[in-house]
């Protein structure tokens, strides 16, 4: 005789699935990825309890299994951000200093390569100013940036 299907574990499975999907979404956002561990772990617990109930009282197991897989994936990805932050925290002073210097160097390099045109313009302006006597505020307007320069001649 076929067993009668029940709703056992179904509600927990749905809750686990929703939290699991939310944790997976959040885990891919680096800024808030670490928070995804919370809903991810809750989702795993809920869906495991749901699966146990479904096994015991002949409920549907599919939704619970899907919830476990999705929430485990979300939690795993969220753990990546924990590793990143723990890795940063475990660096000693010298390593941290070296890392900061690298970042500064990279930023300076990036800024220089982006602003060569601006630098050229400023050099040209400086040359022009050398031949003039100016002691006031000059406003340079570009397409995207408004730069205000105050020049005081010695």
């Amino acid at each position, binding site marked *: 005789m076929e067993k*009668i*299907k*029940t*709703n056992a574990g*179904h*509600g927990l*499975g*749905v809750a686990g*699935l*929703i939290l699991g*999907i*939310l944790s997976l*979404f959040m*885990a*891919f*956002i*680096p*800024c*808030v*990825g*670490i*928070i995804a561990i919370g809903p991810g772990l809750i989702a795993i617990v809920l869906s495991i309890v749901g699966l146990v109930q479904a096994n015991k009282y002949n409920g549907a197991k599919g*939704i619970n299994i899907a919830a476990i897989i999705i929430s485990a994936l979300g939690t795993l*990805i969220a753990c*990546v*951000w924990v*590793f*990143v*932050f723990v*890795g*940063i*925290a475990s660096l000693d002073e010298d390593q941290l200093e070296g890392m*900061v210097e690298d*970042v500064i160097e990279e930023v300076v390099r990036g800024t220089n390569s982006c602003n060569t045109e601006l630098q050229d313009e400023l050099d040209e302006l400086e040359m022009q100013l050398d031949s003039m006597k100016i002691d006031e505020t000059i406003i340079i307007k570009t397409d995207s940036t408004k730069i205000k320069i105050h020049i005081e001649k010695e």
Partner: protein
Amino acid sequence: MKHIDSYRIINIIFAGVIGLVFIYSCLFLPENGSHIIPSFYTDITGNASPSLGLSRAFSALVRGNLDLANQFNPYAINIFAFFCFQFIFRLISLKVNSMSFVNRKTWIRIDIVLTISLFLIAFYPLIRFTIETIGDIMEH
């Protein structure tokens, strides 16, 4: 046995969550930068991530300021479009039982495929960044 319509519950909850995201974006002005959710990644590592400025960009987008949103985060428009689509799709899906042109199972299959595809497209820069970070961790 009391029947639980799980698809309906999932749609209601996700529509609510996305609605809350829109309300959150409306509450804060993009220029202020006073959003209550910080960027943990930037705060801890000091580096920028592809999701930096997403809240401010969303605040600009709900006010229709596309240029400002683009300045805050270049990927925000795609992600915001994904959320808008999802919000509308969840609301439409609440009426799936009364749709005569498509049956429920087909609709759910379309929903899964569409959502996963659009998620991968909209979140591609963030997914790539996450995978690269995983790669870096594996290397060390």
